[in-house]
């Protein structure tokens, strides 16, 4: 796998962004290492490294001004040993097939760690969504979906949103599949609006999952899990919701940032006020009573017990890893820790809870949505919460057990667990025909 590079957009995609340091390539290499540690047969692992299927389509779009443009559309289905494929639909001008291959594989591992019965997929359209009108966006999504009809189905390949807020896109995709199939195809698409069979708890699922894992990790590493000082990078769907939830639970959010502003107070921030300001103005306030404005380059190095990077890849790197003061790091973003920073944290004895385990709440709730659509029975919010807690805890316990056995980092343990589960399913099923 040769992932291409891609600039970070600053907003948080539901799957990793590939950037200059190529954390993705490193991540895939560490799966190779996990397979080696597991003693997995090399030939079997080769099967796992290649996607099962790759679909390429042309996506013609009539623009609002009457002209036509043609985009590239893809769906890569990596491995279906554990169940139907599940993966995002990404809309990006510089979208590349190589990148989707890597994302699809990564989804396979993520589903396996979280214990949801899916294999991984990733798809997308090579279009700059910000340059499209809403009507154009709808047409391009519908056309892409129509090209994939037959493949997109509840027990074959299930779509997930790239951003938690993409519910319009998911609704159009669902409608297109349903019209073509001449039956209501709710389980084929997740991240839908609640009115169309979406699940309670989808919007802040990543943050809820982080909170669950954070409590378990804090207790394991000698912190008081009911009263933590947490520094959060990012205040969007993940960081903002995490701050809100932790503050409401009685923890102290000592730092919070967005793209331009980094706020810090050792006594804890007034999170509701800050988020209200952000909701009104679109950004955090540049000043706030009793709050210190921190140089963004030094923000992550402020004193705290728990550091939650929830914004960009490579936030923790060779340059700042030595100065991080947290005693626990939990990855809300995708690939926020570079391999060199990982090595430094390992030497300094700072545990890092890896993204693949910590930020999978949305994948679990996508799964819940699919279950609810299959049974046609909607779960109450409390039921979603309780079941999310159970699944995240089981994922944590599974990773911890592997860590004890192999005496490795949580990240490597998560990778080993993922490869093991997928390989076991593949071995049980055998090679067809």
């Amino acid at each position, binding site marked *: 796998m040769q992932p291409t590079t891609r600039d970070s957009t600053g907003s948080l995609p539901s799957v990793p962004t590939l950037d200059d340091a190529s954390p993705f390539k490193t991540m895939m290499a560490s799966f190779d290492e996990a397979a080696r540690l597991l003693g997995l047969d090399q030939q079997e692992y080769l099967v796992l490294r290649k996607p099962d299927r790759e679909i390429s389509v042309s996506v013609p779009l009539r623009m609002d001004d009457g002209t036509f443009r043609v985009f590239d559309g893809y769906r890569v289905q990596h491995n279906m*040993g*554990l*169940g139907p494929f599940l993966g995002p639909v990404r809309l990006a001008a510089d979208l590349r097939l190589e990148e989707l291959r890597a994302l699809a594989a990564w989804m396979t591992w993520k589903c396996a760690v979280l214990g949801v019965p899916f294999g991984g997929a990733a798809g997308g359209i090579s279009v700059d969504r910000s340059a499209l009108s809403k009507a154009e966006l709808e047409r391009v999504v519908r056309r892409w979906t129509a090209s994939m009809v037959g493949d997109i189905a509840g027990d*074959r390949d299930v779509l997930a949103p790239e951003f938690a807020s993409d519910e319009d896109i998911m609704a159009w995709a669902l409608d297109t599949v349903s019209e073509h199939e001449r039956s209501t195809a709710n389980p084929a698409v997740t991240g839908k609006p609640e009115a169309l069979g979406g699940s309670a708890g989808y919007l802040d699922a990543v943050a809820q999952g982080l909170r669950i894992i954070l409590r378990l990790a804090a207790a394991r590493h000698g912190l008081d899990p009911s009263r933590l000082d947490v520094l959060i990078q990012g205040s969007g769907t993940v960081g903002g919701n995490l701050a809100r939830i932790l503050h409401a639970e009685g923890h102290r959010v000592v730092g919070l940032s967005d793209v331009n502003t980094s706020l810090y107070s050792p006594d804890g921030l007034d999170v509701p006020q800050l988020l209200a300001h952000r909701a009104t103005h679109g950004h955090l306030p540049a000043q706030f009573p009793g709050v210190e404005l921190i140089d963004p380059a030094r923000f992550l190095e402020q004193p705290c017990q728990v550091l939650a990077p929830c914004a960009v890849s490579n936030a923790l790197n060779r340059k700042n890893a030595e100065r991080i003061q947290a005693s626990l790091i939990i990855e809300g973003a995708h690939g926020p820790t570079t391999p060199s920073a990982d090595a430094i944290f390992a030497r300094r004895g700072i545990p890092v809870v890896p993204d693949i385990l910590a930020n999978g709440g949305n994948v679990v709730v996508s799964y819940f949505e699919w*279950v609810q659509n299959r*049974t046609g029975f909607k779960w109450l919010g409390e039921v979603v919460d309780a079941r999310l807690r159970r699944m995240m805890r089981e994922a944590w316990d599974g990773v911890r057990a592997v860590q004890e056995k192999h005496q490795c980092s949580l990240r490597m343990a998560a990778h080993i667990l993922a490869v093991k589960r997928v390989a076991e399913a593949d071995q*049980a*099923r055998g090679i*067809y025909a």
Partner: protein
Amino acid sequence: MSTGTAAHASKALQDEFNPFLSMAKGFDTAADHLKLDGGIRDVLRMPNRELTVNLPVLMDDGRVKVFTGYRVQHNTLRGPAKGGIRFAPEVNLDEVRALSAWMTWKCSVVNVPFGGGKGGVICDPREMSKNELERLTRRYTVAIMDILGPDRDVPAPDMNTNEQTMAWIMDTYSMHMRRTTTAVVTGKPLNIGGSKGRKEATGRGVMITANEALKMAGLRPEDTRVVVQGAGNVGGLGALLMHREGYRVVSLSDMYGFIHNPQGLDVPAVLAHLGSTKRLEGYREADYQATTPGKVPQLELDCELLVPAATENQITSLNADRIKARVIVEGANGPTTGVASDILDGRGIIVVPDILANAGGVTVSYFEWVQDRMGYFWTEEIVNSRLEQIMVQSFGAVRATAEQYGVSLRTGAYILAIDRVASVYKMRGLSA
């Protein structure tokens, strides 16, 4: 069928040892009580559909060998057909037919929404490589695929088939249908749609029905000495669960012999010994007696509860008089012959019949199918508590039916099962 204790059996004994005649007798007795008319009786007696397939399989040595296989759907009035697939040299259509009917009654007794089915392939798995078995399984699956499906016919493991076989069936079906279809088969590995609690489900069902039977007999677990014939998934795990409930398990057996300690066995220790040495012989805290062909003295030991959980035709006209237990819970299929059953009834011994006592397995198969259909998986506690609920409820319904008709639990179970199927038949009517 193997009739180990009947090496020189007379015609009468041969008939007695034909478990399907025993079952037919159970059916007829129950049908008489229900005053079923001839038409319905014939419908319920004959399988809906029988499929015979011949399966060319490439053997490892390059030759092609043709195997014959069957799938029989006895009745699908209450839901899709459900029943195991066995691989064995002695498989034949008559046996598969009879076993499929058995499944209809078993599913009906515990009120899971399935009809009965059974399948088999004539082959000797001991002589075949894993690759050959995989090719045979996949070819058989393709050959019967037209009548399989989560809403049509859902196979399960049986003699010489296991969760690996089920995984191959699931994979073959899913690949052909081009969609993940875990609910087409049960008894799968956990990671591809299996259910928690399935392995010990039959043993757990035995324990639960034993608890209920003790209440009928006015016994308490701590006053109950248990003799268990068998030490595998049913007997061994059943004994372990009863031990935990406070029963005094005094004897366990394997194919080589049995161990006995009137003071009670430390069942976990016995199973650990069995796990490491593959035999019960050599377990220190008990007497050991090797198996003698044609004799089953273990069944005549002093005890309150006897659990035959090994194979069919163990309690017969030859030993039924000498059974000392007050309660028998049939963990195996057909461990008691029809003649012996009458003798035990005459002696006032409470017999919990196989179609009730060992239905824990099919009940958790049902749970697996439900979980696969929704894609959401239950915790082990939920599986176990729902199993208990169904087994206790079924026992109560069988007991009430037996009391209502003034018959044994066995006849009561058949009456209940047949009545449920017959009433659905009346409601649905004849299609087309």
